């Protein structure tokens, strides 16, 4: 036995090949390096842990110092998006009762709040957040221009794809993370306040996506995408033929009955993260009609629930599988009709309870809220205005949706308020904006050519009701505030009728500034048939015209300097003189070169010319997606009948305060320095707005 073992060992030693491995000093370094990395990480963790009390102490000292010079114990700012100064006064004159707004008027301040030019949410709320003019915060419109492709792009954030990817056949494996960059520049008041040791809660402020890191809590607002990365794409299922629906937006699917009252359908989700071209992930589901209960049963994944016809559901979880990974979203269902089947599914929102992309700071905050109140809308423009425009969602269904989101947001507010002993709390509500956009046509002075099919009071008087609902909210809040608390109510702009569409790009074509490819008399979306080598200017966004500038635009032909300046003057003059032949009104009240409006390092990103539209006119949706045709001005027959894309003098916002202020003409840029002043913080030199001088 011993002999045999000896023999085996001897053979193994003889036959063993030498190991070809590098065991020099480099390997030693690598080995030691990995230990060093663990050691440093461990050391830092210990260091952070041990120094926490010291850091907390310094933070405490900072807080005490700031609070000593603070004029108020708590500062609460509420935004009612789009609440209009003139309409508020008109409603009051007509006898509408807003006891809480009236109380603020009597005991504090009520004034028109000057908006930005243009007076639209991204621009105005960014000036609210930073106290600076758009030339310093870089947001000039909903859309910016891509000077390489001439395509519009979202102005608020940019998704930067992973820098490193591994390509294997049809698969693309990301080796690093994609990043989302906030395009709004300058410094928000909550960052300044929190840097002084004051805890701040900032909920749903537009253009706060991706959420910023600071000493406080944030939930992102307008600008946050849905799970598919869009600004909100609904899904619609109908047993009618696709061509009969007349719907142009969203994901439209024709479904067939597989057996009596049972339909199979597919919900399209986000793009496949690993497959080239990112085809949409899909989740199958079934719809079983229940005529007795006047509704349908939905079976999706492991979930099964009943939806009542005409009632929007609460949020339902939906999952999209990629191998072992599940991407979570939430959606609402609405059965419009059973025969023929008409089912609406809201845009799939990022699930706040399991966010695939952070929508809050810290990330866990959205999860906390979801545990507290259940699912809630995370999409920036969650109220599905376009589904109503397309008649996929009824007027009543839309109002149900808007009210349910308002309810969610108030629940968040009250939970935050309950814990709010000192510091800053800000929240923006969007109900007033969405309701006015969609129901302005019912106002007796609207003159709207759009349909007004309803006679029901909650639809016809939706705007009055919405103002009242905000008053009721104040009625719940104001008694909870003390004399040492400051309350400011602001809106970013007002509202009015929009009855006429101006097809800006068609006008630029007619005037010879945009030139089409040979033989073309119209162009499809996104300037498909434009000859850039001959075009001198193009429209982008809701208010802008860009010069096709040499050295700046990819196929630019206009030389900067004299040629460009002469061109801008020429376009300005023509636009000022432009009349709507049918109505006899001018289309634009003010036309400005960007230098006349903005001052700051980002002015170079603004449109070369900014149009301040006349009341009742705005750029057409077709022009905003760069379509070119032969119509210059046409009727707006969409349900989207109220707007604020005019020159700012027509649409002042509101400013209410529970204290008197010394300034007579407040502007939205003044809110940030006023908040800083409330905490006794000196206004930084870059801020353009002024302290409203609240009388404590």
């Amino acid at each position, binding site marked *: 036995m011993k002999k045999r073992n000896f023999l085996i060992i001897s053979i193994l030693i003889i036959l063993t090949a030498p190991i070809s491995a590098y065991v020099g000093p480099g390997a030693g370094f690598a080995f030691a390096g990995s230990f060093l990395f663990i050691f440093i990480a461990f050391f830092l963790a210990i260091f952070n842990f041990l120094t926490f009390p010291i850091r907390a102490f310094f933070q405490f000292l900072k807080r005490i110092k700031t609070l000593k010079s603070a004029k108020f114990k708590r500062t609460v700012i509420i935004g009612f998006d789009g609440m209009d100064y003139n309409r508020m006064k008109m409603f009051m004159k007509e006898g509408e009762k807003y006891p809480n707004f009236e109380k603020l008027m009597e005991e504090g301040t009520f004034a028109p709040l000057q908006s930005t030019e243009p007076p639209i949410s991204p621009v105005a709320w960014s000036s609210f957040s930073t106290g600076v003019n758009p030339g310093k915060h870089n947001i000039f419109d909903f859309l910016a221009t891509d000077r390489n492709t001439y395509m519009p792009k979202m102005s608020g954030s940019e998704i930067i794809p992973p820098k490193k990817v591994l390509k294997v056949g049809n698969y693309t494996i990301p080796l690093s993370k994609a990043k989302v960059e906030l395009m709004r520049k300058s410094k928000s008041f909550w960052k300044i306040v929190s840097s002084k040791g004051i805890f701040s809660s900032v909920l749903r402020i537009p253009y706060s996506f991706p959420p910023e890191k600071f000493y406080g809590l944030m939930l992102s607002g307008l600008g946050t995408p849905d799970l598919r990365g*869009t600004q909100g794409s609904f899904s619609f299922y109908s047993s009618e033929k696709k061509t009969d629906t007349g719907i142009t937006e969203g994901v439209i699917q024709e479904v067939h009955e597989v057996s009596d009252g049972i339909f199979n359908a597919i919900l399209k989700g986000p793009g496949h993260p690993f497959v080239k071209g990112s085809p949409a992930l899909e989740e199958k589901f079934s719809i079983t009609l229940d005529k007795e209960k006047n509704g349908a049963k939905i079976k999706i994944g492991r979930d099964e629930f009943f939806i009542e016809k005409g009632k929007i559901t609460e949020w339902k979880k939906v999952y999209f599988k990629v191998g072992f990974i599940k991407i979570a979203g939430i959606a609402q269902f609405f059965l419009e009709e059973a025969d023929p089947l008409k089912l609406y599914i809201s845009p799939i929102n990022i699930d706040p309870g399991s966010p695939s992309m952070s929508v809050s700071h810290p990330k866990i905050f959205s999860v906390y809220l979801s545990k507290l109140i259940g699912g809630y809308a995370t999409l920036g423009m969650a109220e599905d205005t376009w589904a109503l425009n397309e008649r996929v969602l009824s007027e009543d269904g839309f109002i149900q949706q808007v009210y349910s989101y308002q309810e969610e947001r108030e629940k968040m507010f009250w939970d935050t308020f309950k814990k709010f002993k000192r510091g800053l709390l800000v929240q923006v509500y969007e109900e007033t904006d969405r309701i006015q956009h969609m129901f302005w046509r019912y106002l007796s002075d609207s003159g709207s050519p759009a349909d007004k099919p309803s006679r029901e009071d909650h639809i016809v008087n939706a705007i009055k009701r919405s103002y009242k609902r905000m008053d009721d909210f104040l009625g719940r809040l104001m008694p909870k505030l003390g004399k040492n608390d400051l309350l400011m109510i602001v809106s970013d702009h007002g509202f009015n009728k929009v009855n006429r569409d101006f097809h800006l790009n068609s006008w630029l074509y007619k005037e010879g500034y945009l030139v089409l490819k040979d033989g073309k008399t119209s162009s499809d979306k996104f300037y498909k048939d434009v000859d850039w080598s001959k075009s001198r200017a193009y429209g982008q966004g809701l208010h802008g015209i860009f010069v096709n500038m040499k050295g700046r635009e990819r196929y630019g032909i206009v030389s900067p300097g004299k040629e460009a300046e002469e061109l801008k003057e020429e376009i300005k003059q023509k636009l000022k003189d432009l009349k709507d032949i049918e109505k006899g009104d001018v289309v634009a009240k003010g036309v400005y070169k960007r230098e006349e409006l903005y001052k700051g*390092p980002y002015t170079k990103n603004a449109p070369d010319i900014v149009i301040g539209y006349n009341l009742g006119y705005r750029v057409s*949706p077709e022009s905003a997606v760069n379509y070119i045709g032969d119509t210059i001005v046409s009727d707006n027959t969409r349900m989207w009948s109220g707007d604020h894309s005019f020159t700012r003098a027509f649409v002042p916002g509101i400013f209410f305060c529970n204290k008197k202020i010394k300034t007579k003409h407040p502007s939205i840029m003044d809110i940030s320095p006023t908040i800083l002043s409330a905490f006794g913080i000196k206004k930084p030199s870059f801020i353009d707005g002024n302290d409203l001088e609240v009388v404590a």
Partner: protein
Amino acid sequence: MAKKVKLSNESSQKADEIIAFHGYSSLEELIGNLIDSEYEKIKSDDDKDEQAEKLSGLGYIS
């Protein structure tokens, strides 16, 4: 990974003047903007279809 850059006194003074003149909120913002401007000149085209997709659902425009 974030990087730290050391500026000479001269550059630092010039930077302060630029910040005050243009209204930047910080040195980080100034440097970020200068880098973005240079990056804009070298970056390749985005996918047009992808850009169009991102815009869908924006009630204001389409």
